[in-house]
């Protein structure tokens, strides 16, 4: 099963589609998930997911904005999509009775 950060990364990459690359994914994670994402955490997770066959990466074009350096483009593979769907469904199942999932006020403990 995927880890939480792996799922967040794959979902961001899938959402960005053809324009998914390191900096864009990082920005998406920080914007949507509201958490800081270091370049180290991002690329080690991309590497791990690529080894598991859940992501495919390749070097994209170099732009002047990047100081002439190439982007590392990312695409979620069918295996990755399947794993992400499984993770999502498991989270939905496990959350079904939780107050925050139903939109009910939390009970005080």
């Amino acid at each position: 099963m995927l880890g939480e950060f792996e799922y967040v990364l794959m979902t961001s990459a899938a959402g960005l589609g053809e324009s998914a690359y390191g900096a864009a994914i990082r920005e998406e994670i920080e914007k949507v998930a509201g958490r800081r994402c270091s370049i180290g955490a991002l690329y080690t997770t991309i590497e791990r997911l690529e080894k598991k066959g859940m992501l495919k990466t390749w070097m994209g074009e170099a732009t002047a904005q990047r100081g002439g350096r190439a982007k590392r483009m990312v695409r979620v593979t069918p295996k990755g999509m399947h794993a992400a769907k499984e993770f999502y469904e498991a989270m939905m199942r496990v959350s079904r009775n939780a107050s925050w999932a139903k939109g009910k006020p939390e009970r005080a403990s």
Partner: protein
Amino acid sequence: MSSLAEMATIFLAPKDRDAVLGDPAEKGASGWSALGSVLGLVVRQQMELWRAWQPWVAVSVAFAGSVLLLGVSFGLSMDSRHLLRGERGYGSVLCEALLMLSWAWTNGFVVGSLSGNARWVSGILCAIPCFSCVLRFQDTSLSRLCVLMFLLPGVIGAVQGVRRARLSYRTALTLAIAMTALMLVWGGRYIQNWFLLMPAWWLVAHAERSELSNGRWRHEDAK
């Protein structure tokens, strides 16, 4: 500072260098921030690497194998001298030389195939006993470099291990049986040298496991 960040990328794989330097540049981050990003990635990659068991086995074999093979190389040099003086037979020295070559090669092969990106650590751990032994060598009748005889077959084995990762089951089994038989014939002069056989038998187990899993895949594909 950005040049420092660029220098720090030597620890990264070529495909990571452009990505990790280009991302901060795109966001207009400072040189310090780029340096921090590169070093952060280097540290995380190393931590990720050492979470697996393979590099641990590789560095242990590199260090222990190096220590034992230094002794074997020295013993072989001494016996070769005795052979020239007529104090030893050809058969026993040839047996010893063949064992030294096969031990060094199989140890190198296992280190090369299991080290992955920890190759530099395995190299350092192999080099430390070598330097220490060469510097403290006191026998004036022999060249101090004689203790390093195992290095050439060891390095050849390591390079082949990096390229091929495993032997075929038949090759590995033949090699392991030949080495064990040779040790039995030779008498296994030092009991600790039996440790040097472990990589050869590990190669057999690894080759058998790989062939079994390949067979299973082929069987499932055929279904």
